[in-house]
């Protein structure tokens, strides 16, 4: 088992290195000079050759690309992601450090909703069948097909602007006002969870249907166990392996969806930081955010693989 985990982590590190290299090279193959873009956007005294040279030196852009690449990698190992173009006194790491917890909170709230709502919904559809199954299947199909920003926009319209139950967006520190913090978390988290809840419900449904058909379920029934006991102890528990895997993989894709949800609800996370930085052409922040999100993505995939290996020893090979 330890070997399996180590091998998986090793592959993950190689993949992360490739990701860093791709992102770095992509941004350094930029058509146009970042220093010129920076000077133009600041509008400070125009783009003179001297000013350009000075900015290039400050940002290390006068070095050969390979040297910049080496420096960037060495910096990464020490948690140094460079400094922002717009605000050269702030490190990229400090920007990300301020935003990452908010995004993770949103993602885990959505994942929690997916488990609490999706698993019972899927189990219900599989057990009852008939019109209940049809209704749940239709709902989950809709949940998968609706863009997250459309769901979010209508949440704002209905629950914030018309009913006034929740704020339309924004963020309050948990430490300053816990209730307000949760009130502002709820709508974006539920909007974000629609897709993953639908996927989890579908996966649970098909896994339960598959498990119910197994011989040992018939055996348990024939021993005279109450139906509910058979279901909760034998069927549901054995159905959860594929559900756990799906959940893990979907959590990764939630990271992408936060970009849109954070925009709708002006939630100050990694996604809104990324969009702002793309608009401002702040390359170091874009680079940092993309690498951190990819690293999380890879980490989650490793965790899912390892968890699957623990749950099902056959998968280790």
């Amino acid at each position: 088992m330890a070997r399996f985990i180590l091998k998986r982590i090793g592959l993950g590190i190689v993949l992360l290195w490739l990701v860093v290299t791709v992102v770095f090279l992509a941004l350094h193959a930029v058509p146009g000079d970042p220093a010129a873009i920076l000077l133009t956007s600041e509008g400070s005294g125009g783009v003179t050759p001297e000013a350009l040279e000075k900015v290039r030196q400050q940002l290390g852009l006068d070095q050969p690309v390979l040297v910049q690449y080496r420096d960037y990698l060495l910096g990464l190992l020490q948690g140094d992601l460079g400094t922002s173009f717009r605000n050269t006194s702030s490190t990229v790491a400090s920007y990300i450090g301020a935003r990452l917890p908010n995004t993770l909170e949103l993602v885990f709230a959505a994942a929690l909703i997916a488990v609490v709502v999706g698993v019972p919904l899927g189990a219900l559809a599989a057990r009852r069948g008939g019109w209940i199954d049809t209704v749940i299947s239709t709902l989950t199909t809709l949940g998968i097909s609706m863009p997250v920003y459309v769901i979010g926009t209508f949440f704002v319209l209905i629950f914030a602007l018309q009913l006034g139950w929740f704020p339309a967006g924004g963020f309050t520190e948990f430490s300053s006002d816990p209730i307000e913090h949760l009130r502002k978390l709820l709508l974006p988290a539920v909007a974000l969870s629609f897709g993953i809840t639908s996927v989890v419900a579908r996966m649970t449904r098909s896994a339960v249907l598959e498990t119910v058909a197994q011989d040992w379920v018939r055996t348990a029934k024939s021993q005279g166990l109450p139906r509910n006991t058979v279901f909760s102890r034998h069927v549901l528990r054995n159905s959860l392996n594929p559900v756990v895997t799906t959940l893990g993989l979907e959590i990764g894709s939630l990271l992408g969806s936060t970009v849109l949800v954070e925009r709708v609800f002006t939630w100050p996370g990694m996604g809104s930081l990324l969009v702002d930085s793309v608009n401002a052409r702040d390359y170091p922040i874009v680079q940092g955010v993309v690498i951190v999100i990819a690293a999380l993505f890879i980490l989650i995939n490793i965790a899912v693989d390892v968890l699957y290996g623990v749950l099902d020893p056959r998968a280790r090979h």
Partner: protein
Amino acid sequence: MFSARSLRRLRKSLNPVRIAGIIVVVAIIVLTLLAPFLGLPDPLAQDISNQLLPIGSEGHLLGTDRFGRDVLSRLIFGARVELVIAMGATAVALVLGTFLGLVGGYFGGIVETLSMRSVDVILAFPPIVLALLVVTIYGTGASTLIVVMGVLFAPRFARLTYGQVVSIRGMEYVEAARVFGSGPLRIVGTVVLPNVSAPLIVQAPLTLATSILLESGLSYLGLGVTPPTPSWGLMVADGQRDIVAHPSLVAVPSLAIVVTILAFGLVGDVMRDWLDPRRGMASQL
């Protein structure tokens, strides 16, 4: 493809909902092809005297937006933009992915490592994040979107093809072609490819739906197609400013996105049951 047996399977794969999906897809394609001939107002023409007209106004069936632009016209011309980008991206993904999967699966060794590891790298990013990275570098615009989404969705086709090729490359008929002296390119193109193509064709409408989803999301962020080109995602974003008084400005393009994605998904289901029946049955277990 059109043998009696295959047609029977096609008929069996249809049900009312799926037929509705096919009709919607056909309708969208016809509408986008005919868009310039429908006598619609110019989707870009602003008309200050006719701002924010409600649904059902004379000459503006779905009303107008805050610039007095005709919503129906923007919706249909937006569908055009949406479909062209999604089809372009799907085509790029199909060709690139199939190529990577074919050569990786057939040749093995270093070719396999290179092609399948590059697929892993693409899959290490959430799609929208990688798309934003590319937009930062190359700016917004339809051609950028086609290429970047094509690359983003190539792994689906690459992995499908790869899996299939690995499973058939040792088969007798491939061996036979080799014995008869066919070169590797000829074998891959004329013997392997036709035998792995069904799941790829089935994957195409689903990729199209995903492309529409992603493109509309980027446009919603203002980082997809360049305004004032009509796009459904942009229409949702623009409509938000007037959502309380005029919710239809958001509802209409939202509905268009959801219905289109659902319809392409249904067409994908039909094609799966029709062309790739083994997989269809497996997923229904």
